[in-house]
């Protein structure tokens, strides 16, 4: 019997001036999710498999408006929520993903259905919504996902002169961005106080040594409609195999170009690195100029995380009683 382990994240790239109440709120949510996952893993019911637990936890994160997924998603330039998610079952390397969903209450569950109940691995936009209807999943109006907070953030993002497609081009006029505090840190071309990526994810290894991973997001604030990021891309934002499960967050382009999640598994497999070494290597060597973070578990019951951004909301727990929630280094 192997050892279980779980990790969750709420996004890489955190405003160092984030008000303490918001930091506490985030940590409480991460703790609650960890506890939920831990009790599921401890139980001997059939729903304690890695794939079931990652779905359960990401559903919880989507339902809570704190982070950028499901309810509380970042808004498109049109003020709507357009969400994407992916999930992967390490045993059998099966996967499912959705993009451009606007009325599905829990995108990660739809991704799971794509994996289990459709002949495909990835569905998007109207096709995904149609499939959701057929499957009878819970559907809601797009309004459900939109919070006042995010309406405000969208306004700021527009004032800060929109998302740059090439995040390496510095934006001018930051002083007009309207945020209460100045911050020289940028991600994806926006000051960090506005950017707040907050994609969510969960990775689990269960007591049978099976790994799974899932990632869910509303994407970039003020994004064009139809924009797809790294979160639904298998190999980039999410990956799981016999060796490990990985979920990433941060600057989408950097994650896509480096196929970040797959890279962790690849160096474990081909360079025979241990989990933490693999995570450290990939974060240090594979991101070029990009800022990102990831969480990972191994089939041996280890858990690890790494990030080169300023902060990452995360939590981990292992069977031998270890539990930790953090934001900063």
């Amino acid at each position: 019997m192997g050892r279980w382990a779980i990790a969750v994240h709420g996004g890489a790239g955190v405003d160092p001036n984030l008000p303490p109440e918001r930091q506490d709120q985030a940590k409480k949510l991460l703790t609650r999710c960890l506890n939920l996952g831990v009790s599921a893993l401890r139980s001997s019911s059939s729903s304690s498999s890695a794939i079931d637990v990652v779905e359960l936890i990401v559903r919880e994160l989507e339902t809570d408006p704190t982070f950028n997924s499901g309810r509380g998603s970042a808004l498109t330039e049109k003020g709507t929520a357009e969400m994407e998610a992916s999930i992967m079952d390490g045993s059998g390397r099966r996967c499912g993903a959705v993009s451009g969903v606007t009325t599905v209450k829990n995108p990660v569950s739809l991704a799971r259905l794509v994996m289990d109940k459709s002949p495909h691995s990835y569905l998007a936009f109207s096709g995904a919504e149609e499939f959701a209807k057929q499957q009878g999943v819970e559907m809601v109006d797009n309004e459900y996902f939109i919070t006042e907070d995010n309406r405000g953030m969208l306004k700021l993002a527009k004032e800060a002169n929109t998302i740059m497609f090439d995040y390496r081009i510095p934006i001018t006029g930051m002083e007009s961005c309207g945020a209460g505090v100045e911050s020289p840190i940028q991600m994806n071309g926006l000051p960090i106080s506005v950017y707040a990526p907050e994609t969510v994810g969960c990775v689990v290894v269960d007591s049978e040594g099976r790994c799974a991973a899932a990632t869910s997001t509303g994407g970039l604030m003020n994004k064009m409609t139809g924009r797809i990021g790294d979160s639904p891309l298998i190999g980039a934002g999410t990956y799981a195999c016999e060796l490990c499960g990985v979920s990433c967050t941060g600057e989408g382009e950097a994650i896509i170009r480096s196929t970040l999640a797959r890279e962790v598994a690849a160096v474990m497999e081909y360079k025979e690195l241990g989990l933490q070494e693999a995570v450290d290597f990939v974060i240090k060597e594979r991101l070029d100029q990009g800022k990102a973070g990831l969480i990972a578990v191994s089939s041996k019951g280890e858990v690890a995380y790494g990030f080169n951004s300023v902060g990452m909301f995360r939590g981990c727990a292992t069977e031998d009683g270890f539990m930790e929630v953090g934001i900063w280094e």
Partner: protein
Amino acid sequence: MNCMMKLFELSLHGGTGDIPLTLPLERRQPREAALRCCLEISVSALKSNHSPLDVVELVKTIRTSMLVERGSILTSNGTVEMEACITEGNKTVELFLGVEIVNSSHFITLENTERLKQAKEANRVQKTPVPNEDSQLGTVGCVAVDSHGILAATTSTSGLVNKMVGRIGDTPVIGAGTFANHLCAVSATGKGEAIICATVAREVATLMEYKGLSLKNAAAYIVEECAQKGTAGLVAVSASGEMTMPFNTTDMFRACATEDGNTEVGRWHSV
């Protein structure tokens, strides 16, 4: 002894799958002619010092015009949805995701409407091979390397016959159907779902980097060991000018050219 590195290498595929050995001449020839045409245009572009990225993009344009003649794969709704991707080693990746095409009637042919009908009747999405049926998967890809070792790859497709509306395959997913870095450029084709899970295109580069395999051995390993039989093929070039076009299906339409004038348009395992 002439030790000059080849100025460029170029490789194209026109889809893989179960192309029957009995494919009639009038079905085979247009595709081979199209590949030859792509090859000639690309070769002269590379010879006139166009960048590999421009060349692979050119192939996509040619493909669009090919589609007007040959017809494009149809979704379960009888509409056309295309996906494509282009990438250059060391540079920003561009990712395209075509959704419904305006004037899609340009791409809809009698033949493909009939194929959709058959697939629906058999309640089949083009997944399992049917003996002697021309699966005509229709993905096109191109990889190129120039004398500076700059690599580029592109892939474009309409996907699977009778696919669900909104289905996205491996083609636009970086690392699955398309990938390029400083080591190699890869374009894969076959059963999208299988290629996504195995991150096929990325894997070629991964094996070269971490296991020190040559391009040929890395690609062969992936196609033979990692991807399920009957699901994948790829074309790839390396920064040092190697080229390979392995596949684990019945066949793959493919063509390649090198600067020293060698060109090949191939089918079957004879090439």
